[in-house]
């Protein structure tokens, strides 16, 4: 779950990482008030879960509370990459002496968290040559220690007895503390700014592990999914919209990808990715079918290899939707094998649908049907 910049900064501040003066505003009036409290040049930043806010005009630099009000008005009426701006962050405008980069994320290959840092932060961080990027894995059994942070700061070329160096040693340790205590799979500060003697997190990117939300009751909930994705997620399913015309349901992430690959190999184009694996029952499967039909595809392709998923559950779900709607508005092809396959096929037969044995045959058929 991605957090808005202002939420990440609130989290940082709570843990003692310095952030710019200021806070979130939902109206131009609030923005004006905050700017007045700050009492100098400000930044008004749109709060959306997308990058490229600057290029889209979502960041303004007002000099007075009145200008801040106006800036907030403009930004609050914007839509950035399809996302309406619902609030802004109003902050002091920092004197920027230097921009650095710091993050901790998960490295799946190493099966560890990894600290990434660079003395050259800002927009261009991804373009920095490899030798300017410091990567240091965090041994989960050893945990984070001051020496780890000192060595990162040393490699960033910052003196350990300077005010900057001392603050950075604290910030690095705190970032890992946040990761562990809040199950953050990403904490990123870009840029981390030197402003005279201060070191300040000028931006925040925090992503919480969705699998850990059950133990993170104190965090605010952030909706970072489209309505269809949310509907699927509420059913415990993984769903992504795509550009094609054949709606697809399969059980398991790998086989769903394999199904899309097969469709595409034979000249079809998938409308979506929908993994309804992991033993999704009759009712949830029916709801998932409704989501797919809501996409208004030209055809529907269901590819089930039952393991923990039972073929009769899928067939019943199909029958439920079929009966509720009095038939399907588009051609449908079902491939159905595995656990309780015979029972499932009987159910389908009862509404006149014949299941396929092999994915490739079924894929070819749906493509023919939607042509």
């Amino acid at each position, binding site marked *: 779950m991605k957090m808005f910049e202002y939420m990440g900064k609130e989290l940082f501040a709570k843990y003692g990482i310095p952030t710019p003066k200021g806070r979130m505003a939902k109206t131009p009036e609030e923005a004006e008030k905050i700017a007045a409290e700050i009492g100098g040049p400000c930044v008004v930043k749109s709060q959306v879960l997308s990058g490229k806010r600057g290029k889209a005009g979502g960041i303004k630099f007002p000099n007075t509370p009145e200008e801040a009000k106006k800036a907030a008005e403009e930004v609050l009426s914007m839509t950035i990459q399809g996302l309406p701006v619902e609030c802004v962050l109003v902050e002091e405008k920092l004197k920027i002496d230097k921009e650095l980069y710091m993050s901790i994320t998960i490295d799946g290959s190493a099966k560890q968290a990894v600290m990434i840092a660079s003395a050259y932060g800002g927009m261009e961080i991804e373009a920095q040559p490899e030798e300017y990027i410091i990567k240091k894995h965090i041994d989960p059994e050893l945990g984070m220690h001051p020496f780890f942070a000192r060595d990162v700061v040393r490699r960033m070329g910052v003196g350990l007895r300077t005010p900057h160096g001392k603050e950075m040693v604290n910030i690095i340790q705190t970032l890992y503390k946040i990761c562990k205590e809040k199950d953050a799979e990403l904490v990123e500060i870009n840029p981390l700014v030197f402003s005279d003697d201060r070191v300040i997190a000028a931006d925040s990117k925090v992503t919480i592990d969705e699998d850990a939300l059950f133990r993170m009751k104190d965090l605010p909930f952030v909706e970072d999914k489209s309505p269809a994705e949310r509907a699927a997620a509420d059913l415990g399913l993984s769903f992504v919209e795509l550009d094609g015309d054949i709606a697809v349901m399969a059980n398991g992430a790998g086989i769903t990808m394999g199904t899309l690959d097969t469709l595409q190999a034979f000249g079809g184009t998938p409308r979506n990715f929908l993994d309804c694996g992991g033993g999704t029952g009759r009712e949830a499967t029916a709801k998932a079918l409704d989501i797919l039909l809501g996409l208004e595809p030209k055809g529907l392709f269901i590819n089930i290899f039952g393991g923990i998923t039972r073929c009769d559950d899928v067939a019943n779900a199909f029958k439920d939707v079929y009966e509720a709607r009095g038939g399907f508005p588009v051609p449908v092809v079902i491939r159905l094998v595995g656990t309780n396959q015979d029972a499932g096929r009987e159910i389908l037969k009862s509404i006149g649908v014949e299941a396929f044995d092999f*994915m490739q045959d079924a894929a070819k058929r749906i493509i023919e049907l939607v042509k």
Partner: protein
Amino acid sequence: MAIIIDENTNVLVMGITGRQASFHTKQMLAYGTKIVAGCTPGKGGQVVEGVPVYNTVREACENHRIDASVIFVPAPGTKDAALENLEAGVKVVVIVTEGVPVYDEIDIVAYARRKGAYVLGPNTFGIVSGGKCKMGIPPNQYFVEGDVGVVARSGTLTYEIVGNLTANGLGQSTVVGMGGDRAVGLTFVDVLKMFEKDDQTKAVVLIGEIGGNNEEIASEYIKEMTKPVVAFIAGKSAPPGKRMGHAGAIIERGKGTYQGKVEALTAAGAKVAPLPFQVPALIKEALGRE
């Protein structure tokens, strides 16, 4: 011989009194798995499908030799269950549970490494040594004894391909599900090394997918292997994924694409099947069979 588990493996089922676990206990027993004990705290003394239930893993270990455990407990308790088995000295831990927090996974994997134990999963379908022992949830009927080793990240896609193999007369030595999550126990290389050493295994199927760089790392080892490897990589048609901030981009640095993986595997001498159903033909070709 098979790898990791075989007909002599004594298996413990964690959370055996649960609905899913007891269903799959029955299925595993039907496959021939030697399930000697189950464990659910506070339900010691019960019997599930003829299997005695204990309160703790240590208690089970006082009464049986436990070689391997399969974990069905809900995600919030999975880390504790996995550590309990590892601490008790169980050397193979198969974690079926989905939705385990990634920092819990990291802790499990680190402790397993220290204890010299194998962890499969979290989020794995399990492992099957054809005709000998099944731990996990795959449908029994598609997994038969033979000489093809299979190692995979995802579940149903593996059933699909194993189903194809079996339909084409190609049985399996062992089918290993490494787990679909970000931090899982074994790597492709770990499993490939075991297949390379295993007498029963004559060829290997590697079922990968886009993302991460496990397939690229595996390719380095495949170069040294004497046994033929056939791969399928899922996700050719997938759009570029959502990235994890700059950090994700820095870690991946262009790795993880379908094209990159296919090139690495091909350069290493593996045959890459464009579609799942094409795997058996490539295996037969590699083994010189018709």
